[in-house]
């Protein structure tokens, strides 16, 4: 259980759950703190269990990608999620969420030793299954992958795909050793996902390790506004222009925490690039926009905050209710409450509202 004072404060703010609609939360983070690492380490062999266990690890643990020191006295975490109750109490009871898709921002593509990264992601998956997913029917999880070793990632999918509570696979973007999302060497992973009818899910991190210019921005807000959106744009662009949806037409893709305000502009931009550079993109049979509309989904968090609410309505219309998936990003400080999303859905048809809040996620993740 997380710090009780934090939780009390958190729940106070969440006193009004969203009613009258099912809500699926596509992005809930397990906190990879000392307590969880200690448990994950028990699933590992020496020597790497000693690297992961905070009681035996001598060096500072590598961050999963955020330049934490920039945050000063504020934490990126509102509270910790280390047990099923840490999801059920604030999200199910507090926010009115009905089902949650859990992930963990693993350091698998950030740590220097490949073997340790692979063993650690594997142990995280085993721990997540035993500790979080088996505990509640409405808790689902994503198979955490290290993209640095695609064959291993494909094996990990094969190993866990039959577990009903694993409903997709999860890549952490922006880490040093994660290849671009559309890199052909990941095809073996996409092939495995298609074989098991599971979606590919991408979550941003800060990208500052791969784009050092972000460090020069000085302000946390400046870096936080750009890095994650860039990471999402890179993934989307790489996936589409490398032809991944053409190669694997049955696969579905979900981008989390990249925001959505930039998406309409990107549809138009990619279309234009395609029309002007088609000869270097010969695999594509359709426009980037068509591929994106057919197979890509965008987590709604962090919701853009325009001064004129009408502009949010336009944004949702341009992307389409069929392509959006509500996500809180709990327990991070920039989470969205379901009511914040729902406020913008009032002008839409009931079935469109339902799809954004729950239906798209239910279909893509094939929730029981």
């Amino acid at each position, binding site marked *: 259980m997380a710090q009780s004072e934090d939780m009390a404060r958190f729940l106070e703010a969440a006193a009004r759950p969203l009613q009258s609609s099912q809500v699926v939360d596509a992005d809930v983070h397990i906190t990879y703190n000392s307590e969880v690492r200690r448990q994950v380490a028990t699933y590992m062999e020496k020597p790497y269990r000693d690297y992961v266990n905070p009681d035996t690890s001598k060096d500072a643990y590598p961050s999963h990608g955020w330049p934490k020191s920039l945050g000063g006295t504020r934490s990126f975490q509102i509270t910790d999620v280390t047990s099923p109750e840490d999801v059920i109490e604030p999200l199910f009871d507090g926010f009115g969420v009905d089902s949650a898709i859990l992930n963990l921002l693993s350091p698998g593509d950030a740590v220097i030793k490949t073997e340790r990264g692979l063993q650690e992601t594997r142990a995280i998956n085993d721990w997540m299954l035993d500790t979080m997913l088996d505990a509640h029917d409405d808790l689902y999880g994503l198979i955490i992958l290290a993209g640095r070793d695609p064959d291993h990632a494909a094996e990990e999918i094969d190993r866990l795909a039959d577990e009903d509570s694993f409903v997709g696979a999860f890549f952490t973007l922006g880490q040093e050793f994660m290849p671009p999302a559309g890199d052909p060497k990941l095809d073996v992973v996409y092939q495995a996902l298609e074989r098991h009818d599971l979606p590919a899910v991408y979550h941003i991190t800060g990208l500052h390790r791969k784009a050092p210019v972000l460090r020069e921005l000085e302000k946390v807000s400046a870096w936080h506004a750009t890095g994650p959106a860039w990471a999402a744009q890179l993934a989307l662009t790489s996936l589409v222009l490398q032809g991944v949806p053409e190669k694997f037409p049955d696969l579905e893709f979900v981008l989390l925490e990249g925001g959505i305000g930039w998406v309409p502009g990107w549809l138009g931009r990619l279309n234009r690039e395609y*029309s*002007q550079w*088609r000869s270097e993109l*010969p*695999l594509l049979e359709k*426009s980037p926009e068509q591929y994106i509309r057919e197979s890509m989904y965008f987590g709604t968090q962090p919701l853009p905050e325009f001064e004129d609410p009408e502009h949010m309505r336009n944004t949702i219309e341009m992307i389409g209710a069929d392509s959006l998936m509500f996500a809180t990003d709990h327990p991070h400080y920039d989470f969205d409450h379901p009511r914040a999303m729902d406020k913008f859905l009032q002008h839409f048809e009931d079935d469109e509202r339902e799809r954004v809040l729950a239906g798209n996620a239910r279909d893509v993740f094939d929730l029981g």
Partner: protein
Amino acid sequence: MSEHVVADAGEISTPGDRLMVTIGSRQIGIFNVNGEYYAYPNWCPHQDGPLCAGPVDGTTDAVYDRETLTETETWVKDGEILRCPWHSWEFDMVENEFLHDSDITLPSFPVRIEDDDVILIL
């Protein structure tokens, strides 16, 4: 329909040859594509660029083998692709379609060689 003698056949007898002709206010490009003749307006539907002034080239095609997970690119349609000189939209002169979006086509005009004349029918 009106027929216009626009050139001597010798001026466009070799594959790859092209003629630009003006009839009234219309500019029309006539192309010898591997021995067949095609005529299109010198106009690009993208931003009104002078399409028929662009280079004639081939283009790449690709197939993906889902067993071996390999993409193979090949050079195809050599001499059949007219590339707009402004933003490089690729126009397939044989199929009358732009390669990035086959719904975009152009008005096309019949061309006939008779005796030693190139005759354009508008």
